[in-house]
């Protein structure tokens, strides 16, 4: 009885503002509040509001049957709370139905897993707390930024007690194997691994409105047929995609909302299919094998590798510089500074610096807040130079103990402080 498992990624970075050289040492405002508010508001009206309304409609129409899951980055949640609180409330309404799972990721949508294990853990715990705060349940499923995954990352995640983890079903890793089963990490101790069916996921996320595609237009019947074809050859069809697919990447006039509205019943036309959340899939089906992924993979670009964020000298030098500040930032004991520094870790900043010029480059350009990859590099250099000066001027305080998120006004009761973990990877 195969399951269709939807996971939607919701993320908005804090975009850096055009920070001129004359602000270095003078202005601690690194982010473009105006643009961030505008973009948040724009995407809310094109995507989050209508899509959440649709999902709530479906969840209520099919009680106990239609199920989906979300991962909302901490920086996106913060911006919703500040700029579009109604969006946050509509996610909470979805959570209240019990048919929607909320997943944990790194709070700052960062690449910390690749650079700093201590940071990685702290950001995960911070996000876990935040999700519990807003949606009432402590997540046991984890997805890393951009589905970046390796054996080592899985180890760290399992150490934190997660039961399920998501990643990309990369061909070069799977070989002849199918992504439509539950797997285990190579050194797993019981944690389950769900792999994205990138073919079917990308049919919706990327190809839905592509007129040059031979299968355009994509109808629910056609798509349901493809899903049904898995029957007997798999346990789960993992459809993982950016939530902004709905209304933002695929505009409303492409029919994406109608497609989604009709999809549940089309899937159920085959009696053995159901919908399930990632943690349900992980308990319903036994793992079939362990997969060995020594080199990090991701869900981005053709290569499904790290080359969207790392690899050119601008990206590598910038990110290395960001992480170099760790000790000083933490020694400063300044929570605001820590938060700012972590917002600079968001993967999007490095994505904007990508200079790959094939078709992926176009996608990067579409998603960039800047005119060129060089702009974001130049801006980040200016900001980090300022940060360097601020740190020189900041007196050292007692080592910082990271306290789970405190939100403006509505403070969460702090349970216990989690001490800073020693760096194990660098």
């Amino acid at each position, binding site marked *: 009885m195969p399951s269709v498992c939807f996971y939607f990624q919701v993320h908005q970075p804090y975009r850096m503002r055009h920070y*001129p*050289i*004359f602000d*270095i*040492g*003078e202005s601690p405002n690194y982010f473009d509040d105006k643009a961030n508010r505008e973009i948040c508001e724009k995407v809310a009206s094109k995507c989050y509001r209508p899509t959440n309304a649709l999902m709530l409609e479906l969840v209520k129409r099919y009680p106990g049957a239609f199920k989906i899951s979300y991962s909302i980055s901490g920086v996106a949640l913060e911006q919703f709370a500040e700029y579009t609180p109604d969006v946050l409330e509509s996610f909470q309404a979805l959570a209240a139905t019990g048919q929607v799972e909320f997943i944990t990721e790194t709070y700052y949508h960062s690449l910390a897993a690749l650079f700093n294990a201590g940071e990685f853990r702290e950001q995960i715990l911070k996000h876990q707390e935040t999700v519990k705060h807003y949606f009432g349940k402590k997540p046991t499923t984890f997805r890393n930024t951009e589905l970046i995954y390796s054996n080592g990352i899985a180890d760290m995640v399992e150490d934190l007690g997660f039961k399920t983890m998501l990643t990309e079903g990369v061909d070069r890793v799977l070989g002849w194997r199918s992504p439509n089963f539950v797997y285990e990490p190579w050194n797993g101790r019981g944690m389950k691994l769900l792999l994205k069916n990138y073919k079917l996921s990308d049919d919706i996320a990327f190809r839905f409105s592509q007129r040059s595609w031979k299968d355009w237009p994509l109808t629910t019947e056609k798509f349901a047929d493809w899903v049904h074809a898995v029957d007997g050859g798999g346990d789960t069809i993992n459809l993982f995609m950016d939530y902004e697919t709905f209304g933002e990447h695929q505009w409303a006039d492409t029919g994406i909302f109608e497609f989604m509205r009709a999809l549940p019943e089309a899937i159920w036309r085959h009696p053995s299919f159901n919908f399930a959340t990632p943690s349900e899939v992980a308990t319903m089906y036994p793992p079939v094998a362990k997969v060995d992924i020594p080199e990090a993979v991701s869900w981005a670009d053709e290569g499904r590798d790290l080359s969207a964020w790392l690899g*050119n*000298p*601008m990206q590598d*030098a*910038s990110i290395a*510089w960001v992480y170099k500040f760790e000790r000083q930032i933490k020694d400063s004991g300044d929570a605001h500074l820590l938060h700012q520094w972590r917002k600079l870790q968001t993967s999007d900043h490095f994505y904007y610096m990508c*200079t790959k010029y094939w078709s992926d480059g176009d996608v990067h350009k579409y998603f960039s807040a800047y005119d*060129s990859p*060089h702009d974001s*590099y*130049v801006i980040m*250099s*200016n900001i*980090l*130079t300022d940060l*360097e*000066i601020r740190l*020189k001027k900041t007196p050292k305080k007692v080592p910082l103990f990271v306290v789970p998120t405190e939100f403006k006004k509505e403070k969460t009761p702090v349970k216990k402080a989690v001490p800073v973990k020693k760096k194990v990877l660098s």
Partner: protein
Amino acid sequence: MLGWEIPPFNSGGLGTACLGLTEGLSDQGVDIRFVVPKVFGKLPFNHMKVLSAADYSSASQLKSLLEREDIQQEFITHQLAYGGHISVNEKKELLIEHLNHQLPVAPHIQATWYAQQAAAIAEQTEHFEVIHAHDWFTYYGGMAARDVARRKGHNVPFIAHVHATEIDRSGEHGDPAIIAIERTGLHAADHVVAVSHYTKELLHRRYGIPRSKISVVHNGIPSHKQPQVFDIQELKRHHKIVLFMGRMTMQKGPDYFVKLAKAVTDEDPNVRFIMVGSGDMEKKCIEESAKQGLTGKMLFSSFLRGSSVDRAYQLADLFVMPSVSEPFGIVALEAMQNGTPVLVSNQSGVAEVSNNIMKVDFWDIEAMKGSVLSALYDPNFHAAMKQGGYDDLQTLTWDHAATKMKAVYEHVLRSMKPLELQPAYA
């Protein structure tokens, strides 16, 4: 006076020089009509009348330009890139469009069009004693206006003023069409003015202009305008700062500045380099800096205007102009005016005018490094350069340049022979 641009609608030093020189000449009682291809908006000065050449377009002139049976026809068709089969009227419209918006057109076409406009303007101007043309674009115009004057019976001299040649801008890869216009114009001119002895020698050696025909009038700075003084930026309290300011093109040697930054910071990592400007080498310089490990040591800013320029000079402890071939280099004087010591390449005209400027060959990175470090770390030397620079600037003003220029006018006018009487029957 025939020009190409005038501030604030300028892209480089030529406009700045024309403004300074005309202000000086006007103070000395010279009445100026200044022609530019097109006036784009209201101009913030009234020491001279600015004429827009585009306003003098007549349909018949453009038609005749397009009907000329020479290589220019091919240029038009080819350069406008609309195929070879368009009617004269279509060509005319395209050409007007291009010329009016200063879009690239074949050099001959631009210069010929400008010459026709200049002739029309000369025709309508009651009385003028000198035709003063700035750089290649206007040389045909100078010749055409002189022809008009001669037809009216006045032997008015055409003075070609060389601010830069195509050889400065592009080295051995210059556009042969522009070089040809320069050669024709300079040989046809009654007299040539060069902005430096460096340029005078280049004109003699590369264009075959006799030295006796060339006067040198160095550029200057406005004596009445003192830069706004800015507070010391925090950045400067933490780092020694070396500045590059100019177009990032081959001529200005930005790549040598990157090499210099590498050499200096290898020895003293606390020095910060800043590059201000835009141009076709901008991205290359940014990428090269990242590649050389200069992230955090080299900062960038796009083209600055107005008081921000002074602010950048004041931010710096040293200004470096590593030009490969620089006829003058007013920026060096501007830096001195802001109290910032200057290092220029030996291949720069400005090197001739002050003994309080450090001079090194642009390719000699080792020597440049040594000069930079001593300028940064020898306070006595730094102070002496700064004071010496101020002193030298007393005589490096546009007033001085204008006095010299007026003397050149007088010399040329004295040497002009009256036109030979034409037989009445001719």
